[in-house]
């Protein structure tokens, strides 16, 4: 019998989740290895990205293959404001979110009426267009040289620290935010509408569900969260360029995290990131790094295995976390 979807907050989960959060937050105090901290931050970062993408890709079933563009909007807006006007990154995230929201709104109006492969292709094109525009307008964006935030010593205002601990907390906080938004949508009326739309658009429409508006809202929310993560990427990596933040490889990584973990679930992207990021690190270590080549091969093998054996994602190995599926 399918489990019943819960519209009220499930208090039974609060205590374990709280303990988990405490454990995660105290972990860096026990860890002095900067490298390990950065791996964990990467895990949180990609889990959050996957979670944000999931809102439009998993819940609504609209596979956006150009989501890196929204990372770029956040990263570049925050970066340029910081570099030219000394706007602190935690304030610069807001204009980035606005830019992402506006672009997502118009993009949605344009492409969300398309189905299947046409939607995928047009979002793919959108991602590439953004990357190429960032490359082209060198006077504004720095072109292929990108934007570098030089480390000028410890500066709380600009979120610059000698260690990674603050970044660790910020990335964890962003992950919690994305999962919270994702979970709220999942359990709300909008979540039901999205599920119906993903299932059978014609039937959903004949039930009075406003298709365009619902899908568009999902895309805008997803874009806003993704752009915030772009802002974080800037302060974490201190260097951005069009390829790094708007490249196709990033879009693919985001989707992989969500799909491998479990499309349309709250915890899926977390599991996906916990699987993919360490595997990537290990493969870089063992096979000698490089963006192309070995890592792509590993991605491909994992993706094919998951699609063949666990098409609903690795989260199906942990049924308790799969939580509330359809009513």
């Amino acid at each position: 019998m399918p489990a019943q979807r819960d519209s009220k907050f499930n208090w039974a989960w609060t205590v374990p989740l709280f303990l988990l959060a405490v454990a995660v937050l105290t972990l860096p105090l026990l860890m002095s290895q900067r490298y390990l901290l950065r791996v964990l931050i990467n895990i949180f970062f990609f889990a959050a990205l996957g979670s944000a993408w999931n809102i439009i890709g998993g819940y609504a079933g609209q596979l956006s293959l150009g989501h890196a563009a929204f990372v770029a909007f956040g990263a570049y807006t925050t970066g340029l404001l910081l570099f030219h006007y000394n706007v602190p990154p935690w304030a610069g995230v807001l204009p980035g979110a606005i830019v992402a929201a506006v672009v997502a709104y118009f993009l949605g109006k344009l492409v969300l009426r398309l189905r299947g492969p046409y939607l995928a292709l047009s979002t793919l094109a959108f991602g590439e267009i953004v990357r190429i525009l960032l490359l082209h307008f060198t006077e504004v964006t720095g072109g292929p040289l990108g934007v570098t935030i030089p480390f000028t010593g410890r500066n709380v205002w600009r979120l610059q620290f000698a260690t990674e601990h603050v970044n660790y907390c910020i990335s964890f906080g962003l992950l919690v935010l994305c999962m919270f938004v994702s979970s709220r949508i999942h359990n709300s009326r909008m979540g039901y509408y999205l599920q119906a739309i993903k299932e059978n658009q014609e039937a959903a429409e004949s039930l009075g569900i406003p298709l365009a508006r619902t899908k568009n809202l999902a895309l805008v929310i997803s874009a806003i969260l993704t752009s915030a993560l772009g802002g974080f990427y800037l302060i974490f990596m201190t260097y951005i360029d069009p390829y790094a933040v708007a490249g196709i490889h990033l879009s693919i990584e985001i989707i992989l995290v969500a799909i491998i973990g479990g499309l349309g679930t709250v915890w899926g992207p977390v599991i996906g990131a916990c699987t993919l990021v360490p595997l990537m690190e290990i493969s870089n270590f063992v096979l000698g790094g490089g963006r192309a080549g070995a890592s792509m091969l590993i991605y491909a093998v994992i993706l094919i295995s998951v699609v063949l054996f666990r098409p609903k994602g690795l989260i199906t190995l942990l049924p308790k976390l799969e939580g509330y599926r359809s009513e």
Partner: protein
Amino acid sequence: MDVDLLVPIEPQGAMVMESTAHDNGNILELHHLRKVFGGLAAVDDVSFHIARGEIIGLIGPNGAGKSTIVNLIMGGHKADGGTIMFNGENIVNCRTDEVVRRGIARTFQVENPLLNMTARGNVMIGAMPHNPNRDDAMAEAEEIVERLGLGRVAHHLATNLTVQDRKRLELARTLATRPSLLLLDECMAGLTRAEIDQTLDLLRQFQAEGLSMLVIEHVMQAVMNISDRVIVLDYGKVICGGRPDDVVHDPKVIEAYLGKRGYARAAAAES
């Protein structure tokens, strides 16, 4: 805490419309409706009306344009001409979800449920626009499901239901949207005699509660039994309209169904 991220919109069709100065008692009026696909006029200058509380049967050979008319009313197709007046307002080219919110609902010729949701879930989604609270929507869905005899299969996935249950589910989903006009597209296809009778009883109940209906059917006894008036479509044009008895004996109608030769044969057999 149920976060409602969409502005809830009160449906207008659920309430009986106040009589305006122009209200002539018709819930739906089609005036010179036209729809062309390529070179073919699927709907060609069609005009008829449905009075409030009436059940209109829409019959005609396959390909006559009956489903196209339903799609035009529901906003699935863009009309190439004409108006569709619902409660005095022209709804031609309104978006489908808006049409549903105003109070028109349709069933599909080939049942079109949300397959991976339960029967009750399907109905609940329809009830959600009026019920921001999920529990209220669930309660309304349960009521409708019970009423239409789907109680024992409420928790079954729609993909596992029998044909009759699926047809009932189509009806249940429409009721969840609180319509004042129902467009039923061959809702009795594939049903046994007993099941047809049950469905007819249900439709009469709906009519008694004030629902108006447009019933597209090929099951002739059903249409004649339930309709107050019958309209006959052929090649996109209205060829006849009136009381069921008058229509069924109209030579044009017989010719449309049986063809010229068939009509001649039938006439010869009679004499």
